[in-house]
Structures are given as structure tokens and as C-alpha cells.
């Protein structure tokens, strides 16, 4: 579903990604882990077509970036630590707006479904700026799944969430993954990643330094694996 070969990203003289190779099968849930500055967000921004690769090949769902970026974007849902929502619009208006940007058929019905899925039907006519951080993040996930994407990218989705909101987000993420979507999530929360992902890739100094599946790693060993790879 996602194939990345020898990806290089430079910002001026600084090289952030240094020949990164990465692939994800359909339906996999990959947690992309690594220290600050490893290049996780840069990598996800390239996958989401918000940033152009300096060199290398990236293809998602059979479409290459950046040449076929519109086709990729149609199949992609992105959630970051920023909500990507308008505070002065209601929850319903935000979803209606993004639905119109994706030219979705039967939009009102789809908006109803998504609001129910993220548990915000009762707050549909409230302005988003009155929402808690957790509610905004749930609505952000609703926005990202509105067009029924095959691939979901989550960039630190738990940033700023309290315990209750994080647990609620766990449930929404599990549901998103259970629907058969391919998921890539960056996180610093190893315990949470361990409960959600089927594979763990560790990004360090612009390359994938190590990769392990949930099955091969076993339960409760992710932290040791992470420390071992990074030499911490």
C-alpha cells in the first residue's frame, strides 16, 4: 500500500531524511517511533504530499508522489497534533466544508455517520472553539475519515490529551484500523503504540534503524527494543 525507496529530504544544507526505505502492507498498523528530530513529521508530511521529496520514490495505493498527488490525497486521511479545524464553524459545518472539498456524494448523510462514529452528534451545532482538546481531536479524526480513505496517517495524535481523552482516542483509532485501513502513526508514547500497532519501525537520523512486528517482539518488550536500537 505504501512503498518508499531511498527517500532523501533536504532543507537547504540540512539533510533530514537520508535514503529512507519503508513499506507498509494493506491493513497494517505501523507505529513510527523515534527521538525528537529523527524526521518522523517530515516523513509523514512527504507521505501526505504536503512536502516534496528531494530525491527518491514514494508511492501510495499505486500512485506516485509528487506526480499523482491529487490521486494520493483522495485516498489519504491525515490527523496531526493540530486539529485542522475552524474554530468559528460548528462541528457539522467543518465536516460539510471538508466534504465539499472532497466532492463527496450524499454529504449530509456521511456527516451524520461520521459525527456518530466519533461521538459528537449531540454537539454538532456547537462551535469547534468551544470544544475540549479531546473533542477537537475526535472531530479531527472524523474529518480525516470523512472521505473513507484507504490510508490513515497520524502524527502524534495524543499530544495535549488528558488520560480520559487519550483512552477515548484509543477506541476511535482501533475502530479506524479495524475497518481495514492501512495506518501509520508517529508517537512518543511507546506503551500506547504497543497496544495499537502491529509493527514498530524506529526512525533515527533520517533512516529506519530497526523494525519489528508485534508478534516477533512479544508483549511488554517494546521499550527494551527501542532503547537497544537507539543505544539509550
Amino acid at each position: 500500500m505504501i512503498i518508499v525507496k531511498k527517500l532523501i529530504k533536504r532543507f537547504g544544507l540540512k539533510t533530514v531524511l537520508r535514503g529512507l526505505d519503508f513499506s507498509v502492507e494493506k491493513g497494517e498498523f505501523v507505529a513510527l517511533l523515534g527521538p525528537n528530530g529523527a524526521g518522523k513529521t517530515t516523513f509523514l508530511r512527504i507521505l501526505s504530499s504536503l512536502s516534496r521529496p528531494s530525491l527518491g520514490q514514494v508511492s501510495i495505493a499505486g500512485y506516485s508522489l509528487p506526480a499523482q498527488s491529487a490521486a494520493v490525497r483522495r485516498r489519504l486521511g491525515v490527523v496531526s497534533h493540530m486539529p485542522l479545524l475552524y474554530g468559528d464553524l460548528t462541528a457539522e459545518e467543518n465536516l460539510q466544508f471538508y466534504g465539499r472539498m472532497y466532492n463527496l456524494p450524499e454529504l449530509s448523510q456521511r456527516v451524520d455517520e461520521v459525527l456518530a462514529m466519533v461521538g459528537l452528534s449531540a454537539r454538532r451545532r456547537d462551535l469547534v472553539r468551544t470544544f475540549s482538546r479531546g473533542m477537537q481531536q475526535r472531530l479531527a479524526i472524523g474529518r480525516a475519515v470523512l472521505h473513507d480513505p484507504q490510508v490513515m496517517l497520524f502524527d502524534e495524535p495524543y499530544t495535549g490529551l488528558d488520560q480520559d481523552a487519550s483512552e477515548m482516542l484509543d477506541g476511535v483509532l482501533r475502530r479506524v484500523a479495524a475497518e481495514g485501513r492501512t495506518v501509520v502513526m508517529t508517537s512518543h508514547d511507546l506503551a500506547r503504540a504497543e497496544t495499537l500497532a502491529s509493527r514498530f519501525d524506529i526512525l533515527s537520523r533520517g533512516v529506519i534503524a530497526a523494525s519489528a512486528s508485534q508478534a516477533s517482539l512479544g508483549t511488554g518488550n517494546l521499550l527494551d527494543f527501542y532503547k537497544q536500537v537507539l543505544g539509550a
Partner: protein
Amino acid sequence: MSENPKAPTSRPASNYFGAVMAVTWKDLAAEFRSRELLSAMLIFALLVILVFNFSLELDREARESVTAGVLWVTFAFAGTLGLNRSMAIEKDRGCLDGLLLAPVDRSAIYFGKALSNLAFMLIVEVIVLPVYFILYNPKNFFSPGFFGVILLGSIGYVAVGTLLSTMAVQTRTRDVLLPILLFPLVIPVLVSAVQASKGFLSGLPIGEIVPWLNLLVVYDVIFIAAAFMVFDFVVEE
């Protein structure tokens, strides 16, 4: 989720016009609810035009020769405020990324933002113009050509301003960078708008105004075409 990987999950037909209108609708709906941008632009514009009125103690003849300039300086200053705020709203909550993730040609986002910026500017102008009329009492204020110039000048200003505000908002110095980038580039629009406005207000023969109108139209077309071509590169890292 769609099973066929090649099947588009949204309608494949071009959504260009729909996306343009969606962005404009979103901006107008959010602004009419918060009124943050319009009230700031309006208060600033009224203050500028009042300050000019009280600081320039001119006789009638001198006044007639400078009021078109005063008007356009007012519009330009207020417009800069609006352009900055309009893009800052997109950047502060990551919404610009949300727009860029939509599967449409990115120039649709530019045209949507430009249309809403133009609407905000025209609303401010509709309120400021009667004040300008009362304070400066220009001779041929109700000339249709004068209002045509206001529209053409605003289109040119917004066309280049929307593009540059998109560039400026991605920098740390966005508040100061926009006017520094914008004013040198928009000089041809402002000069031709001031000269054409002055021509209509002072009742010059149309033959003397047409060259300025032509220049205004040419710059409008150039700025819109240039923005259409480069917007994708401006927004992508």
C-alpha cells in the same frame, strides 16, 4: 472503506469550482460569526482616513489632487491587515494543511481565498466610501467609472496580496513581511488606480483615463495568471 484500491473514494469529476466556492463560503461564514477581521479592517480604515483628513489642511484645489491617493492608501493599509489575518487563521490551527490535503488543484484554494479577501475588502470599501465622500466631498464621486476603478484596483491588490500572504504566513516574521513584500509589487496597481480614480473624480475626458484603466486591467490579469501558476510551489515545502 473502499475495497478497490483504484476506485476513487470521492466523486472523480472535477471539483474545481465547488472547491473555490467551498473555501469562500467557509471564510465568509466564519467571519460573519466572529467579525474579527472585518471589524479590525474597518476601524483601521476609518482611523486612517480621519487622520489624513485632520493632518492635511488643504485648500480645495490641493485637496482634489490628493484625495484619490488618500483613499487608496487607506484601502491598501486596511487590506494588508485583512490579508494577514485571513491567512493567519489558516496557519494557526493547521487548517492550511487541511486545505492542501484536499484532492483538488491547489489553485482552487488560492481563488477561494482571493474571492473571500475581495469580499472583505469590498465590504470595507462600501462603508468607507460614504465617509470619504462626507470628509473630502469630491466633485464627481458618483461617476460609475470611479466605482469601476475601485473594483479593478481591489482585484489587483487582492490577487497579489493573497499570494504573498500565503508566502508570508509560513515565516516567523509574517506580520512585518507581508507589507514589505506586498507594497513594492503592488505599486503598479496602486499608481494606476490612483491616477484613474483622480481622473474620474476631477472629470477628466475618458481618453486621458483609458491608459491607466488599461494598465490596471493588464496588471490584474498578470497577477491572477502568475498566482495561478505559482501557488502550488508557494504552498509546498
